[in-house]
């Protein structure tokens, strides 16, 4: 039995009081940990998913919605834009790269994105198995999609109309998995990528050949050449045969206004895409291009950095409020520890005097009392971290949106260590004033006064 053991014994001896103090601290630390995990992972994920993308061009509407739908794949698109925009922007000397996106379908909740291999390359996507798509209805699936659906190379699947996965199936146009990507830690992990032509064709348009080479602009010129073919009467009739309107109602009720026509569904008969991801060649583009697009075209340009800063600042108000509440809770628990120890030590003055009689040095008794506060705080802090991670894990498991954002409980942030150290420091501080009494104790008087 040591003085440290005595600290533990005292805590166990008043178990209810100890448990309540630990609970209070656990709640405050858990709240802070959840905030840290959520905000840091969210910000990091935002940054990672927007890597390399300077501008997003899409249909008029909310710029934040355009960014969320095109980059983070968490919202419905604002609409579609003419395919001709691709060539228009590729012809701009200040633009280094244009990556088209065609959205509208999904498989078991995972979005099917019609695009070019450059999209995969942008996220550093590397094939773990198989090969990159080279023709319509060939699909390359992200690591999470492969893991969650169990899909393997050569397997076929049917896309569902709509982004939520409960629309009608495009049964006559199954996709074949030709490649599986290694995990990237980006949005790519939960996407199914395929040529843009697949999306067009799935919706009844005979898509122009897509070579799958983002650099081959001639192929895109070919798109224009095939427009007449794509938009013939049969194509529209086939498309109508999908009962497209019903599909919209079934699959997108919650986004009735925001739901775009799917990429191939040309309002005026031209092929369309959902959005374009732009990389600048020069900084001049940042000055000129968004302004030009927003003011002089029917399109909308939104910069991911700007929109995400705005979103994070909006979220930040709420996060700051919760953080302030959690800090207040932590201060309350510190005060509670102080009151508990102060009150306990008043009752234990006789014990302290007896410890001195038995030869314990004042410094050792002081340390044992501070240790009591530290043990309380450490238990609360560590439990708080555990509870915080458990809540994040449960949230990620319960809410697909959070899981899709990449929220994970399996990561520890440096800020958590700071929180734990702050909580332990607070426990030590709360114990300090009661502990200092040991240096002032008159042993003989205390032994005479206490029974």
């Amino acid at each position, binding site marked *: *039995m*040591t*003085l440290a*053991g*005595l600290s533990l*014994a*005292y805590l*166990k*001896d008043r178990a209810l009081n100890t448990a309540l103090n630990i609970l209070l601290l656990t709640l405050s630390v858990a709240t802070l940990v959840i905030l840290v995990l959520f905000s840091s992972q969210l910000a990091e994920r935002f940054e990672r998913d927007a890597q390399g993308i300077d501008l997003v061009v899409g249909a008029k509407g909310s710029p934040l919605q355009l960014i969320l739908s095109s980059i983070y794949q968490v919202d419905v698109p604002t609409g579609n834009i003419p395919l001709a925009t691709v060539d228009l922007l590729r012809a701009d000397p200040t633009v280094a790269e244009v990556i088209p996106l065609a959205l509208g379908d999904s498989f078991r909740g995972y979005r099917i994105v019609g695009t070019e291999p450059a999209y995969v390359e942008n996220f550093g996507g590397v094939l773990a198995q198989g090969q990159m798509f080279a023709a319509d209805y060939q699909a390359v699936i992200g690591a999470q999609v492969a893991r969650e659906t169990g899909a393997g190379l050569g397997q076929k699947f049917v896309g569902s109309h709509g982004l939520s996965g409960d629309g009608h199936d495009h049964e006559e146009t199954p996709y074949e998995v030709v490649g599986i990507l290694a995990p990237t830690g980006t949005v790519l992990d939960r996407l199914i990528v395929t040529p843009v032509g697949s999306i067009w064709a799935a919706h009844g348009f005979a898509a122009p050949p897509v070579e799958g080479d983002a650099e081959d602009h001639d192929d895109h010129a070919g798109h224009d050449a095939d427009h007449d073919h794509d938009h013939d009467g049969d194509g529209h009739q086939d498309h109508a045969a999908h009962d497209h309107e019903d599909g919209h109602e079934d699959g997108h009720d919650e986004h009735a206004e925001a739901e775009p026509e799917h990429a191939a569904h040309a309002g005026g008969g031209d092929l369309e895409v959902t959005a374009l991801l732009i990389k600048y060649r020069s900084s001049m583009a940042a000055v000129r291009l968004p302004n030009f697009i927003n003011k002089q075209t029917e399109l909308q340009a939104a910069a991911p950095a700007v929109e995400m800063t705005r979103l994070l600042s909006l979220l930040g108000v709420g996060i700051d409020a919760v953080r302030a509440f959690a800090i207040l809770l932590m201060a309350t628990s510190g005060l509670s520890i102080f009151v508990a120890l102060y009150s306990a030590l008043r009752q234990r003055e*006789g*014990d302290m005097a*007896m*410890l*001195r*009689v*038995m*030869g*314990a*040095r004042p410094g050792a008794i002081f340390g044992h009392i501070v240790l009591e506060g530290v043990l309380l705080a450490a238990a609360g802090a560590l439990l708080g971290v555990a509870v915080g991670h458990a809540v994040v894990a449960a949230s990620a498991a319960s809410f697909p949106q959070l899981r899709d954002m990449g929220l994970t409980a399996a990561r520890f942030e440096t800020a958590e260590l700071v929180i734990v150290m702050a909580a332990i420091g607070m426990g030590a501080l709360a114990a300090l004033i009661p502990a200092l009494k040991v240096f002032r104790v008159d*042993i*003989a008087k205390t*032994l*005479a006064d206490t*029974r």
Partner: protein
Amino acid sequence: MTTPAEPLIEVRDLRHEIDGRCVMAAPAFAAVRGEHTLLLGPSGSGKTTLINVITGLITPTSGEVRIAGQVMSALPAAQRDQLRRRTIGVVFQTLRLIGALSVRQNLALAQRLALGQNDSAAIESLIAQVGLTHRADARPRELSQGEGQRAAIARALCAKPAIVVADEPTSALDDANAIAMSDLLLATAEATGATLLIATHDNRLRARFDRTLTLATPQVAA
């Protein structure tokens, strides 16, 4: 260090005042290793004050106490604590067992503080010697008065101190228990070779000690 013939406790011209009023004036006496002394005095005679001076908890107004040859009041606080820790075991009337610890843990803590380490076998042996083996895991609040006093005696002896002092150890006990308590103190001190000093107003113990000193109530100056 002292030889067996040298006194472990020496009290000379000891007097203690509080606010100018004498609360204790002790006769000169010395106790050698293994000697058992009964210090008798009525309430208010300063027995507890004398015990506190002997254990170094208070500094007397005048006179001196030597413990194992060292003048207690002349030592710095840290050395006084060390001398008390290594040399003296104390039994109080109110027991002063740590309520959050079991009997065994109370002994272990006292032993650790005195010796810097635990000797589990010695603790178990002492617990058996005071007849508390079946109550070793009980908390003080779960013990009867008699069991608690036996635990307090065991704690005072667990570091094998050269000196055991007891302040009114039997005042709350009936005759049978008072005799049993003093016999236990005598037996355990005998077994460990400790010098025993019991301060009490309880005349029932007089017959059990070879040597009795009397502490008179200090005279208040007119």
